């Protein structure tokens, strides 16, 4: 394809699904309460940021979705959300 590739800045968030124990979230919550803050419902997730090249935004989203199901998340236990933002033409 001769069409030019675009660059997209991608941000992916991966969270454990509701109902699964989030040990890190619990630990953080306990520590914040130890410090005197009245914190509840704490969850800890992961954020991935990267730049990807794709023909258009639709393709970029399709690729990111694929990355999430193939590596960044295990859809059986994780949920994920992502955003892609065009940053330039190459």
């Amino acid at each position, binding site marked *: 394809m001769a069409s030019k590739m675009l660059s997209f800045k991608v941000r992916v968030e991966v969270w*454990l699904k509701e109902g*699964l*124990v*989030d*040990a890190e979230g*619990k*630990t953080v919550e306990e520590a914040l309460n130890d410090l005197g803050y009245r914190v509840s419902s704490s969850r800890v997730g*992961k954020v991935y940021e990267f730049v990807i090249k794709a023909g258009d935004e639709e393709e970029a989203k399709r690729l990111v979705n694929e990355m999430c*199901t*193939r*590596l*960044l998340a*295990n*859809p*059986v*236990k*994780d949920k994920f959300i992502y955003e892609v933002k065009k940053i330039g033409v190459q």
Partner: protein
Amino acid sequence: MVIRILILRAPGTNCDEETARALREVGAEACIVHTNKLLSNEVDLFSYHGLVLPGGFSYGDRVRAGAIWASKLKSRLMEKLMEYALNGNPILGICNGFQALIELGVLPFTRRTDLNPKAALAPNISSKFEARWVYLKCHSNTCIFTRYIDVNEVPRMPVAHSEGRFILGEGLSGEELSKRGQVVFKYVKANGAPANSEYPFNPNGSMFDIAGICNEDGNVLGLMPHPERAVYDWQLPDYTSVRRYSGHADGWRIFKSMIEYIEEEIR
């Protein structure tokens, strides 16, 4: 003829040596091979009768336990690995190795085209790293790794993990797995009664108390407990007080079964 087993090492695996020793104890030639050597084709998987993915923290558990190890294998070795498994060669995944087989999509089902994971090993309900001896019950008569374990026995092995809670993906049921003989080990109480999710007998909150599962053909087994840490009777926690053992502990029987299967079916 010598039975050769490949123990796959990755950055962060830490049970490779014990696993090799366990396999040597049952008469196999155990070779520890780095994942990169397999990926670069320097070592051919098919020159070994069996494959073991040992426990540890491969690739620092980055992204998720077993995820990077699985993606490395997926990227360059998947076809070969599938052929190897469908050929009937035994593949054993222990702890982190089990997590990798799940992430690879080789377990619970090897015979399918979609390789996205159909199960997961989620964080333990206790939210702790569980390092303790557990009691197990064997529920499968099709798995090739349990030839030496009777269904009426209660073998003991230690677990050591923080992500061992087995869950199945949508549309899949534990009953179905169980019916097909794929639920190999369940956590039980010391007297063999079902753990029924009760802690600490079920150490992680696994559905149906599942500790280990095999594929449809019974030649790929993944389990959270560490059989390589229960090879000799002197490894048992009550060895000094009981002293009624006869040389080997229960984990030995898994390796013994693997070797016997290779002797009879593979070579």
